[in-house]
């Protein structure tokens, strides 16, 4: 599993962001390593402390670094020059906003996403907010047209808070073992469809209580994947 490092000028900001992320992330999450705050408890970043955090976070699968702003970016880049070049090659500094990116990356990492996947999920971290506020989606999953053998499920979502981060992660996680392409669309509210392997894409559907989601399941494992999705939905997506 990849490691995650949070670089912030403020230790309290970083700690709070991590609390928020772990609130929604599956329990399989690895600890998130912090490199935050200045020497005397004030605001600041420290490339040497970030380099140490990178070493602590890396289990060999790479590290995604979430940063706040300004010197956090420069110090994180400098830290990559302080560590072994092979380890540095496994580090990505995310351009995502800190809170949204951290939540997205934590969820993606916990369900086994590799470094590239977690990086991409973090970048999509703002999509749900953008959809809600009418800013539109930054990226539309074109996907392939389903084959004639595709299974279609209609799922009425009864969760009080709709499909938020935890159930979105549960869906992506439940479908991960199958060789199947699962596309979700909010038929109640319209909008773009999304691939179900992306928790951030699911969040961007903006599914609220009572909405109906249409799942199109295709591929060699379509039957098993559809059954797993139906079982998860019947169980309240693990929320009940």
């Amino acid at each position: 599993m990849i490691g995650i490092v949070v670089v912030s000028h403020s230790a309290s900001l970083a700690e709070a962001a991590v609390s928020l992320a772990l609130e929604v992330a599956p329990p399989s999450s690895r600890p998130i390593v912090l490199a935050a705050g200045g020497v005397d408890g004030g605001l600041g970043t420290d490339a040497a402390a970030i380099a140490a955090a990178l070493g602590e976070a890396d289990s060999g699968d790479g590290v995604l670094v979430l940063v706040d702003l300004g010197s956090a970016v420069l110090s994180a880049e400098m830290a990559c020059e302080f560590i072994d070049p092979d380890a540095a090659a496994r580090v990505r500094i995310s351009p995502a906003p800190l809170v949204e990116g951290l939540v997205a990356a934590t969820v993606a990492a916990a369900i086994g996403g590799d470094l590239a996947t977690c990086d991409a999920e973090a970048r999509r971290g703002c999509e749900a907010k953008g959809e809600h506020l009418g800013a539109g989606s930054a990226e539309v999953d074109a996907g392939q047209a389903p084959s004639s053998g595709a299974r279609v499920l209609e799922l009425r979502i009864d969760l009080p808070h709709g499909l938020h981060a935890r159930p979105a992660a549960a869906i992506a996680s439940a479908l991960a073992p199958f060789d199947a392409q699962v596309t979700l669309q909010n038929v109640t509210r319209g909008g773009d469809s999304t691939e179900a392997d992306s928790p951030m894409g699911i969040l961007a559907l903006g599914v609220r209580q009572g909405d109906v989601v249409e799942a199109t399941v295709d591929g060699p494992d379509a039957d098993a994947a559809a059954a797993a999705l139906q079982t998860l939905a019947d169980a309240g997506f693990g929320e009940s």
Partner: protein
Amino acid sequence: MTTVDLAQTQAWLADFAAAIHENAALLTDLDRQIGDADHGSNMDRGLTAVAALNADDFADTAAYLKKVGMTLVSTVGGASGPLYGTFFLRFAGALPAAADAAGLGAALRAGVEGVAARGRAEEGDKTMLDALAPALRAYDEAVGEGVRPALEAAAAAAATGRDATVPLVARKGRASYLGERSAGHQDPGATSATLLLESAARNLG
């Protein structure tokens, strides 16, 4: 031929630390106008830690300057930490033993290029590079005259570059959030970078 030694180098950093301390309020005030009002206090904290280093603990000038860079990285806190830290680390990496004017010029070039690469900045962005880049050019032009005259030319060029940041619109750093409103203010980074070169011209060579 005059060369730069460890004692001179420590005197340079001690002088720079004193100049930063004397000008901390000015630097913070400049930063308050276009940034986040911490450049003076951040640099003062970092240089105070640098001034506490004992040059006798280091095998040579390059080792001492590497420690200077790492100290700034870990104590300054703001963007000046990685920027000045990079300057000294790259400077140290390129500094020959018993550096003459040409050797010091090579170190200065490595430091200035390191700052540009770290900040992805170029001249005209209203940053410390607006003092450092013209200083490097002036140094190179005067390098044949020896360390001290070349550094004096560099310090004068840095001051001219610093003054020329006043009308610029910031394109990097916190001041860039202000856009056009950053014009009319002298850049704090170019101001501290000029102090660095003025200290060098008083102590090296």
